């Protein structure tokens, strides 16, 4: 069996964070021992609250930042050091798409020139053909030639995000890391971009790491889902299993809090308490101050992320106890 497209193994990333204006700098573990796998042609969705470490994980996966511990493997090989030639070659195989398409584009250049840029940088195709290649890419994401001749501010948000996707595809990458790619878009436009990403994946067999705080969007695109809380994965598994029958109380709360129009089919759990402060990680299970299922044990003992009988991974004492009880009972 060939190695997975992308693998992070126990990656950890710490930042110094200053408390107050003059306060001492405290260390924040933005990402704390995260192991993830993205397979070819598949999407891993990454959800979690603001500050839980999703974007940092995305940057680590692309080698844009070096982990303080752990390693990242691309097709089974270690990520070369940043700015080495090997890294730049590898980088062409993986691309990132951010939330803000306007920020990702150069406002002084026509769209087609920006889509052409990667062909020039990586010396792909004959110089004479490159513009035609760029227009072909634009067409493949549903942008017309006249739109390609426009400047970024002359396009709508959804059109700009299409342009960014076209540019990311120029180097024929194997992996796309999408960090909140549709969060700034209106629903009707969001659906256009989601369909586009799904189509491209099917056509090109791309692996996708798809970061979003919107569970509905995550479910739409993901084969597997990983849920982060304070820098750690708390649950990971097959998308439909995880979202229809969450094992971890935080996943359960997230699913029940997702605003959906019309009748709800499951009771709503409204979490009490505040979002966690990464600089003061609670003892034991970091979720315990907000968890409705918390026991004494949860305050002192940090649960490990380990497999449940149904194959998913979960980091929760109670979820594992329940699963073991059910297994013993049957």
């Amino acid at each position, binding site marked *: 069996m060939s190695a997975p497209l992308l693998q992070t193994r126990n990656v950890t990333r710490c930042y110094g964070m200053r408390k107050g204006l003059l306060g001492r700098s405290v260390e924040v573990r933005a990402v704390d021992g995260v192991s993830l796998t993205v397979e070819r042609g598949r999407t891993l969705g990454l959800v979690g609250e603001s500050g839980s470490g999703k974007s940092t994980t995305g940057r680590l996966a692309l080698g844009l930042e070096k982990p303080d511990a752990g390693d990242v493997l691309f097709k089974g090989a270690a990520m070369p050091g940043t700015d080495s030639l090997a890294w730049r070659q590898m980088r062409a195989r993986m691309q990132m798409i951010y939330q803000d398409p306007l920020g990702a584009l150069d406002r002084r250049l026509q769209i087609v020139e920006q889509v052409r840029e990667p062909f020039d940088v990586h010396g792909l195709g004959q110089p004479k053909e490159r513009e035609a290649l760029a227009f072909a890419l634009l067409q493949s994401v549903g942008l017309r030639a006249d739109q390609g001749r426009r400047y970024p501010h002359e396009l709508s948000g959804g059109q700009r995000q299409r342009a960014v996707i076209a540019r990311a595809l120029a180097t024929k990458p194997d992996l796309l890391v999408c960090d909140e790619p549709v969060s700034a878009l209106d629903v*009707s436009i969001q*659906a*256009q971009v989601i369909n586009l990403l799904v189509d491209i994946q099917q056509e090109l067999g791309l692996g996708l790491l798809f970061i979003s705080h919107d569970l509905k969007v995550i*479910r739409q695109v993901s084969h597997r889902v990983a849920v982060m809380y304070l820098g750690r994965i708390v649950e990971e598994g097959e998308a439909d299993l995880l979202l229809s029958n969450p094992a971890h109380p935080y996943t359960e709360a*997230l699913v029940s809090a997702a*605003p959906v129009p019309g009748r709800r089919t499951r009771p709503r759990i*409204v979490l009490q308490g505040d*979002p966690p402060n990464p600089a003061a990680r609670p003892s034991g299970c970091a979720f315990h101050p907000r968890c409705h299922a918390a026991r004494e044990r949860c305050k002192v003992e940090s649960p490990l992320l380990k497999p449940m009988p149904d194959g998913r991974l979960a980091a929760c004492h109670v979820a594992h106890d329940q699963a073991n009880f059910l297994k013993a009972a049957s």
Partner: protein
Amino acid sequence: MSTVLDRFGTVADPLVEINGLTVAFDGVKVLHGIDLSVARGEAVGLVGESGCGKSVTWLAALGLLPKKASVSGNVRLGSTELIDAEPDVLDTVRGGRIAMIFQDPASALNPVLRLGKQVGEALALHGGLSGAAIRAEARRLFDLVGIPDAARRLDAFPHELSGGQNQRVMIAMALAGKPDLLVADEPTTALDATIQAQILELLTKIRRETDMALVLISHDLGVISQTCDRVCVMYAGRIIETAEAQSLFDTPLHPYTQGLIAALPPLEGVRRRLDPIEGNVPEPWNLPPGCAFAPRCPRRGEACDAGVPPLAWKAPGRFAACIKALQAEPVRPREPVYA
């Protein structure tokens, strides 16, 4: 509580009644005659894509638009007309009978003032309280909006609280004048899903307890659906559909509302390819001649370009601005989204 609209789209004995409200900036019309009434204690949702005029509607109603905006129409609060009202009339209404939580983050809390002082100022302005009574009332409001350890938090600065807690403080300030109507413009958009659920639950609880009316502005159909009795869907500066929340989501009449719902990925049931609305929202200075939705509408016919369809009665409590939306009959049978 649910309020039934009469055949003219107004509620019986409205708290606030907006009639024919239009707004133009530099000669470009962005609101084309909004009619909207809100009953006592009712929760009305205003939903629509970015730029459709949700915020401008209420900024205009409360006299908060910049001078360059030209506003016409009527906004009545009881017997008081608010359009072109004297500044002192507007000052007593704003933060008094009608309070607004703004979308604009710059209008949020003052970073260098203690929270208790900010709430206290709102209380002094509208409650006529002073001294110790203010502090006691501020504490009561903090308790009401669920800020733990209220007494100590009154002495805190905004940066010492989380985003969700600061949003609670904003709500506390809005409640200081015991408003009859709270207009909340995207009050949870910047918050995480679990915190958003807390704030929406809080707004609903306060509304139940005080019989305050709520206008909730959001681009998120889910948020609106879970919080509001009645929903107005806006498109390109007009209300294009209004109905009681449940029936709007069960049987949307207007093709735009149907499109919005179909474009939303479901959280349960079979996954299907999303059904986006093709094209983009038209620019305010470049509107099509007839129905503004026509260029994107799967049902468009020649008659649609003849004129702007009025928001017309279709069934009890149901209004839609579409010539093809027949009475209480969905234009296009809705796909079994959650099959």
